[in-house]
């Protein structure tokens, strides 16, 4: 059964960035924030709330529909799969995604969540969960 990442308890977040570091460590072999598919950010400093932005695993993904090159294809269980060879960094997909879950790495490649669940494994506060989804 495919899985998807879910922000289960956003208000428990302590803003530690462990999930972001885990995502880039596991999926990009780097220590960085920019390579992480999940995005933790505050707006108005740490004294205000903490935003958690990650792919919402759309079944009919608007990012894929928007991509003029067909680089994003719907993934079994929700979300998309990126074919880097087809992507020409036009960044149209990013605007199509309302939660703004797509951003770009230093090579201007979109960073796309593969729903591996590693970030949830390194969240000490149960903010994130990996859930099984129905196969389409």
């Amino acid at each position: 059964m495919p899985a998807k990442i879910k922000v289960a308890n956003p208000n428990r977040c302590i803003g530690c960035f462990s999930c972001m570091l885990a995502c880039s460590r596991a999926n990009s072999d780097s220590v960085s924030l920019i390579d992480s598919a999940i995005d933790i950010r505050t707006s108005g400093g740490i004294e205000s709330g903490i935003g958690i932005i990650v792919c919402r695993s759309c079944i009919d993904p608007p990012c894929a529909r928007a991509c003029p090159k067909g680089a994003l294809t719907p993934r079994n269980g929700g979300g998309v799969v990126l074919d880097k060879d087809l992507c020409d960094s036009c960044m149209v997909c990013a605007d199509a995604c309302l939660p703004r879950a797509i951003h770009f790495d230093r090579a201007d490649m979109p960073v796309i969540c593969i729903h591996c669940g590693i970030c949830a494994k390194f969240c000490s506060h149960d903010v994130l969960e990996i859930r099984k989804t129905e196969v389409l």
Partner: protein
Amino acid sequence: MWSKVLYIDLETGEHHTRDRSDLFDKYLGGTGVATQLLLEECPAGIDALSPENPIIFSIGPLTTIYPCASKVVSMFKSPMTGELGESHAGGRLAMAMRFAGYDSIVIKGRAAKPSYLSIHDNEVKIKDATSIWNVSSVEVTGKILREVEPGKGRRSIMRIGKAGVNQVRYANVNVDTYRHFGRLGLGAVFGSKNLKAIVISGTEEVELPDMSAYKNMYGKLYKEVVDTEVMDKYHDLGTAANINVLNQLKGLPTKNLKQSHFENAESISGEYFADNLLLRKIACSNCPIGCIHIAMLKTPFQKGHEFEVSHISYDYELIYSLGTNLGITMGEDVLRLIDRCEKHGLDVMSTGGVLAWATEMYERDLITPTDTLGISLRWGDTDNFLKMIDRIVEMPNKFYQALAKGTAVAAAEYGGEEFAINLGGLEIAGYHTGPASIVGQIVGVRHSHLDNGGYSIDQKASSQQLNEEQMVDKLIYEDYWRMINNSLVCCLFARGVYGEQNMVDALESVGIKKTREELEAMGREIFLAKYAFKKREGFDVEKVSVPKRFFETVSQLGMVQEETLEQMLELYRKKTGI
């Protein structure tokens, strides 16, 4: 591997970077490298508030790489003690420096006009801060800068308040609202340089030589940090749990150390705060623990349920210094006092010490309402203490000018030195546990309880019957090894996880090979390099006078004898060669 130092001259407006692998290879980073930079950059005998005094920030080889490697070391000559100034802070700064790509930052000179630094990856700018120079609250300063600076969401913002601008000797630098470079007066040094704030962010990627070794080690350390009990106490009630513990043991300095227990401790205890005032916990970047306890204070200001709401971070030391030490009986009142210090950017521990000394002076008629400008000082009187805090920052007369220089200086001028509770010119941390705590703060490189954890050695002494020499040996062990923790730079709250072996292994996994013995020798070398600076600037362990009060109030280990201290100091000097 990481050895880039950013040099900024506020006077000329120039900046450049230099590779300093000569220093980083030898001293890892953090406190080890910062000490060398200080020795290089700070001319002997200068006034700490002159343009010559450098400000140095350093991260280390594990920063952002491993969990809880979340701190930045700052170094400067201290306007408080006139010798080594060193302070550590968390928040997001360490991560911001890592991803901006700077392992150290050295700031020199004085800007002609109020300025702030804007550092985003390779863009380094000195910008005009005239319009925010007199913004009194550090929180508001942060809000203003957030609107105009890039790096939104993950940048770090350091800034000073009015205390720093007015150069109160123990002004701190606020880091990301809830963390600080406190204690030895970095805020005053900022003020003396016309430097209001520093904003820093970055987008670098760090690649490591052996990713699979790194991932394995990360998993291991993460598990130890999160799953084991090593760090439980910092997470649950936080450090504030110590209020009840130390109170029961008679180790809790109260009312200017007239007592070592507080009859009203319950209503300002960690339990009280957690049950009644705690709002949430947050973390420094890259720390899964989240020990930063934020309380919510709701103060009615008008009829009709009009409330002023503030969010205030609290810790044990703050509750001691503005709570038990001032005889404050309600957690809410402690929060009001913390909030006021935070707003001005004052070091809370020193402010509490200064107020406690002044209160006893007033009680004994050694100062009068003429000195205090009409404020009468009484234990537990929050409103008057709030007024005092404002006056310390404004310094309207000679007495407040003295208070703004700290307890030791004020007592030298006004008397009451036998109860001016300081060690080496710095107000003490909240422990009257016995001789190791006192010796530890005298010899500690920054006169901090965190230099060697003397308080916990006292506690061990009571359960394991340690003699003087054994206590001294333990102090020295901590003094040396914590130099390594602080060079990596790992949070000292995680020192239970970063023991000798884990430090060796963690370094190896990122390509730095050092044996246990090499690290131990390096710890000693760094310690001695700091002492070289301290001595050069006139510090002499033998000249530190211990106020009589320490020997008059019972400690956790009973009455502390002067002879015990002398014996331990003598042993310490012999063994370390300081």
